[in-house]
């Protein structure tokens, strides 16, 4: 294919370096410096996609990141990426791209043909079309929406690339490297401050890359080149190209998405990280993010060949690609005349500028007239023709209020419209920084008004559209930002001299009329191209009561596509305002949220993309043994805990049954090292524990242990555990595995903020100790063999005491505590002895058929005894009384955390939800955890829910299913039958004591 629209000019491309690529299955040629979009324009290809809802043919509209139409699936296989903008894809040899959102092809789209789509997708279609029944969602609506939407396809393969994160500090962060941004970076850089300059484009220069401005008597790009060279020579300046600042967060925290290898294509060196997310913390920020040209909303303004004026200028000047053979400019302001002039100079036929203003007598319109361009004022485009490419337009005079056509229509054949509805400063980042905007009537746009952070806005982003002022603003802001961060004296270097051209004000006509009222005839006025939202949709939304811009946005989906409304938001809310008869500032804007442009998940995940670095994994010293012996693992927080140890041919049920019986009949061993452990020392330690726990601690003898509940001040249980007195002023606290960090925080909070006079020191020792829990009737015999010098008799070593001694040749603390109800010892050894101790236990325990068991069996055994697990059976809304554990509250204590709340009206109610046991009528049926409970089998709607199942297991030792539950008024309802509901299944269950096994506690002493 030849590039029929390529000119001999083009400041940003190298015509001697040819690049071959494929678009929608067809081979094309581009040149070095092209984007995919510019190469397509050079080849005369404008039809690049179909609209989201109605599948209308769409063309390239812009040349930047705001592009709503040219949405591309790039490459195939694992590196395939959906929803990229052709305007930002740099061409490389062998590139393969296709349009998204069209089936079977961009030229023949099934969904567009039947016209169904347009009737279906009126404003609010999400809410109106896809109503009940819910079952329709799964089977009909969702698959249909997905197929019709069809926004690209995710690769099924694993991402082969790597991604980076970088954290960096700087004094002055300049975002946007157009004229104002370059000036700011130069000024700040000269002060010696650390400066970062980033820009989303391939090259620095911003709007100067696209235009033919003159600076200091030379082409502006020469000034850009010298400015960049000067910046590159400064060691204190970091320059980032292809880098989108996508988030501006609190305290000048700015995230930047840098695309490092995409322009090499799949041939990029694999050792290079493909994308990098930079996390900058800047002392001062200068926003020089430029502005986006605004489309005009006129009849059928979406045909391929209709383009934003300055983008057409960019294609011609920068890429040497003419947007068409014969085009008209349609504008409401002076800036588009520059486009007409440049395009004529580049060799394109521009017979006419159609200007919505009654008068166009500025410098630029006059130059255009001198070039022989007809300027038609007080007129608008009222109709367009051409399906896959614009063929002709109709223009007419329109009334000065913009409401109606006043003259005869005139038909003009052309293949291109270059439109300009004025300019929207790119205030996205400013807005994200919580800066306040104001509406400027004259410029008809929102401008930064009040900064909320240490930030300055310059150039077009501030509404300063003339080049000279932008350069001066940039210099001044850069110098001041440096000064405010401690560098330089704040004096701005002299700005270079641009040619000043005075532009006359624009005239905002938000909807250009056609020969039928908006929305009442065949012609459509598009506002949001990507989501197919028309002016009529917005008017309908207003009529249906969507008076807030946020409601209108959600109802019509304006600005909710991947372009995030960069082109549509202001037009949309202006139309809404007019419909409501309000001024634009009264209606206001929607909230700008990060990301400014889409960021790949890979970049956000960084090196963690493969999962192994996403979150730390904690393993006990015995992990390798568990692994070698076939354990399956269960994540508990960050811990990997042995879940059960299946033998050959065993499933989970069989393994847990075997393990459960083994402990009750002989001896079992559990790796309990993950339990939280806190070493507590200091002369006030006992007094402190007395306030933290509900029971009494002052008189606990050294050598003894006590089980305790910690409450929050609202009286609700938040953690439990056994704490042992190691010495007069020394305690060893254990917590739940998941609660360890929270408990330590809790202790520190009270020590530091409420009782700073108490002398208590808390240290996390969780990882210093390995804990082996050995339980079952044979446990004592095994311990006696492991530690022949220690006395394990009930008299010498009773329940809830601990002893120190040599176990298997290493120093150990042995605690006689039990979470199974059976005789049980917890051996604690230094973690480097953990594996040794475990292996010794297995070796000596072999003759007792010692059985390792995991967390699942632990859960079953404790449930057989009715022991609660905090966080499973509780959820922060249970008092100790609710759990039937009044005994744990010391009546003698005057105060402890949470005590006062016991007598609050709500806490002292007798009919609160209370912990009970449940037995199913059918002994084999295990309830679903989380199943809701009702008193009656048949209930009105909504059913009165009286509780839920918190734990449910098969108990091998009882040969019966068991469950624990929170039931309203449960303690008074022992023996009653109630009903458990699980997705339509109803099970009759009896309320019983949660202690199912060994209710007299006879097994504890062996």
């Amino acid at each position, binding site marked *: 294919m030849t590039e029929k629209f390529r000119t001999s000019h083009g400041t940003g491309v190298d015509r001697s370096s040819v690049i071959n690529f494929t678009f929608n299955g067809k081979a094309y040629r581009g040149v070095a410096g092209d984007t995919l979009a510019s190469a397509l324009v050079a080849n005369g290809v404008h039809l690049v996609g179909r609209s989201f809802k109605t599948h209308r043919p769409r063309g390239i509209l812009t040349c930047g990141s705001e592009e709503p139409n040219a949405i591309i699936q790039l490459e195939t296989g694992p590196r395939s990426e959906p929803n990229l903008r052709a305007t930002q894809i740099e061409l490389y040899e062998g590139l393969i791209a296709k349009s998204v959102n069209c089936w079977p092809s961009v030229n023949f789209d099934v969904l567009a043909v039947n016209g169904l789509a347009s009737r279906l997708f009126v404003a609010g279609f999400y809410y109106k079309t896809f109503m009940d029944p819910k079952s329709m969602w799964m089977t009909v609506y969702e698959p249909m929406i997905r197929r019709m939407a069809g926004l690209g396809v995710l690769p099924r393969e694993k991402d082969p690339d790597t991604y980076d994160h970088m954290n960096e500090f700087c004094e002055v962060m300049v975002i946007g490297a157009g004229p104002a941004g370059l000036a700011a970076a130069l000024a700040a850089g000269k002060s010696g401050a650390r400066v970062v300059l980033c820009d989303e484009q391939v090259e620095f220069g911003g709007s100067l890359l696209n235009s033919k401005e003159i600076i200091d008597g030379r082409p502006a790009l020469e000034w850009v080149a010298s400015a960049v060279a000067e910046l590159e020579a400064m060691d204190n300046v970091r320059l980032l190209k292809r880098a989108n600042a996508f988030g501006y*967060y*609190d*305290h*000048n*925290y700015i995230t930047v998405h840098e695309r490092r290898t995409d322009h090499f294509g799949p041939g990029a060196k694999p050792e290079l990280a493909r994308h990098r997310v930079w996390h900058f*913390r800047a002392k001062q920020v200068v926003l020089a993010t430029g502005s986006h040209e605004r489309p005009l909303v006129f009849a059928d303004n979406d045909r391929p060949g209709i383009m934003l004026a300055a983008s057409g200028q960019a294609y011609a000047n920068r890429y040497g690609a003419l947007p068409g053979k014969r085009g008209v400019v349609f504008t409401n302001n002076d800036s588009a005349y520059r486009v007409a002039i440049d395009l004529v100079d580049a060799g394109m036929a521009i017979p006419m500028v159609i200007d919505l203003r009654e008068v166009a007598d500025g410098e630029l319109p006059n130059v255009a007239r001198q070039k022989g361009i007809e300027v038609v004022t007080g007129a608008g485009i009222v109709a367009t023709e051409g399906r896959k490419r614009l063929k002709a337009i109709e223009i007419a005079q329109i009334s000065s209020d913009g409401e109606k056509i006043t003259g005869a229509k005139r038909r003009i054949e052309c293949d291109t419209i270059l439109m300009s509805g004025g300019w929207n400063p790119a205030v996205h980042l400013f807005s994200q920084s*919580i800066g306040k905007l104001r509406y400027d009537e004259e410029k008809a746009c929102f401008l930064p008004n*009040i900064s*909320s*952070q240490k930030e300055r806005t310059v150039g077009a982003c501030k509404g300063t559209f003339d080049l000279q002022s932008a350069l001066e603003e940039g210099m001044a802001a850069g110098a001041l930002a440096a000064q405010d961060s401690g560098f330089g004296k704040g004096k701005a270097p002299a700005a270079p001299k641009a040619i000043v051209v005075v532009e006359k004000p624009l005239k905002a006509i938000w909807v250009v009329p056609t020969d039928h009222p908006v929305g009442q005839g065949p012609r459509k006025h598009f506002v949001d191209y990507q989501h197919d939202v028309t002016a009529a949709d917005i008017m309908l939304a207003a009529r249906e009561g969507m008076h807030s811009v946020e409601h209108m946005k959600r109802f019509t989906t304006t600005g909710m596509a991947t372009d995030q409304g960069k082109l549509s938001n202001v037009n949309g809310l202006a139309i809404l305002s007019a419909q409501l008869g309000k001024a634009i500032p009264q209606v206001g804007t929607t909230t700008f949220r990060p990301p400014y442009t889409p960021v790949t998940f890979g970049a956000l995940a960084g090196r963690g993309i493969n999962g192994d670095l996403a979150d730390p994994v904690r393993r006990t010293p015995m992990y390798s043994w568990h692994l070698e012996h076939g354990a399956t693992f269960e994540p508990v927080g960050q811990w990997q805990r042995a879940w059960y140890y299946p033998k050959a041919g065993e499933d989970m049920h069989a393994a847990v049954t075997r393990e459960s019986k083994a402990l009750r009949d002989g001896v079992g061993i559990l790796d309990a090292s993950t339990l939280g452990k806190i070493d507590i020392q200091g002369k006030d330690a006992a007094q402190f524990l007395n306030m933290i726990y509900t029971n009494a601690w002052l008189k606990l003898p050294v050598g003894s242990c006590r089980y305790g509940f910690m409450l929050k*001040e*609202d009286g609700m249980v938040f953690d439990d555990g056994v704490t042992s007195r190691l010495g007069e002023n020394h305690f060893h606290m254990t917590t739940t595995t998941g609660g360890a960090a929270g408990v330590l*925080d809790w202790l*520190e*909070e009270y020590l*530091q*903020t*409420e009782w*700073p*006079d108490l002398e208590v020191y808390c240290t996390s020792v969780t990882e210093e100790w390995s804990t082996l829990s050995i339980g079952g009737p044979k446990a004592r015999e095994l311990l006696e063999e492991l530690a022949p010098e220690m006395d394990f008799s009930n008299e010498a070593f009773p329940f809830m005491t601990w002893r120190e001694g040599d176990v298997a040749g290493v120093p150990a603390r042995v605690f006689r505590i039990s979470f199974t109800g059976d005789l049980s010892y917890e051996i604690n050894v230094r973690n480097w002895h953990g594996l040794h101790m475990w292996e010794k236990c297995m070796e000596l325990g072999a003759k007792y058929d010692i059985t390792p068991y995991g967390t699942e069996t632990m859960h079953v055994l404790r449930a057989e005894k009715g022991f609660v697990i905090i966080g499973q059976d509780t959820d922060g809304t249970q008092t100790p009384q609710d759990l039937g554990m009044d005994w744990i509250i010391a009546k003698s204590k*005057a*105060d402890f955390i949470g*005590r*006062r*709340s016991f*007598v*609050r*009206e709500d806490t002292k109610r007798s009919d609160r939800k209370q912990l009970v046991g449940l037995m199913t009528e059918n002994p084999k049926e295990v309830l679903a955890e989380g199943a809701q409970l009702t008193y009656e089998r048949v209930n009105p709607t909504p059913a009165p829910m009286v509780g839920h199942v918190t734990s449910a297991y098969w108990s091998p030792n009882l040969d019966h299913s068991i469950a624990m539950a929170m039931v309203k008024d449960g303690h008074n309802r022992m023996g009653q039958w109630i009903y458990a509901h699980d997705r339509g299944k109803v099970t009759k269950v009896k309320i019983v004591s949660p202690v199912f096994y060994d209710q007299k506690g006879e097994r504890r002493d062996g």
Partner: protein
Amino acid sequence: MLYIKCPWCGERDETEYHYGGEAHIARPENPDELTDAEWAEYVFMRTNTKGVHRERWVHSDGCRRWFNVARNTVTNEIVAVYKAGEKLELPAAEAVKAEAETKKAPAKKPAKKPATVKKAAVDKKEGA
């Protein structure tokens, strides 16, 4: 993400800290003497300030110390950071601003005059 200056370690990202709610709410010395309403006031009720809010933070991933922060809840600007047990006196302008913001519209520029922190002895009744 906030950037908070721990009085012990210096400026660090918010991710190193945990938030601890409104500051200067002391635990009552004799809870039994309080009415239910008074107790509920202590346990549940907070001011929900729009403007300068004194709040507690703990440097969980650093020195593990609790300290106080005066933060403007409208702009997230941190007006002052001070140690547990210390008291903060806001400069007049800041105090007026805090008052105004609580009433209505957010004020603009941060006051240039820094807040002053009094090194009072730990006052148990005041809390931290």
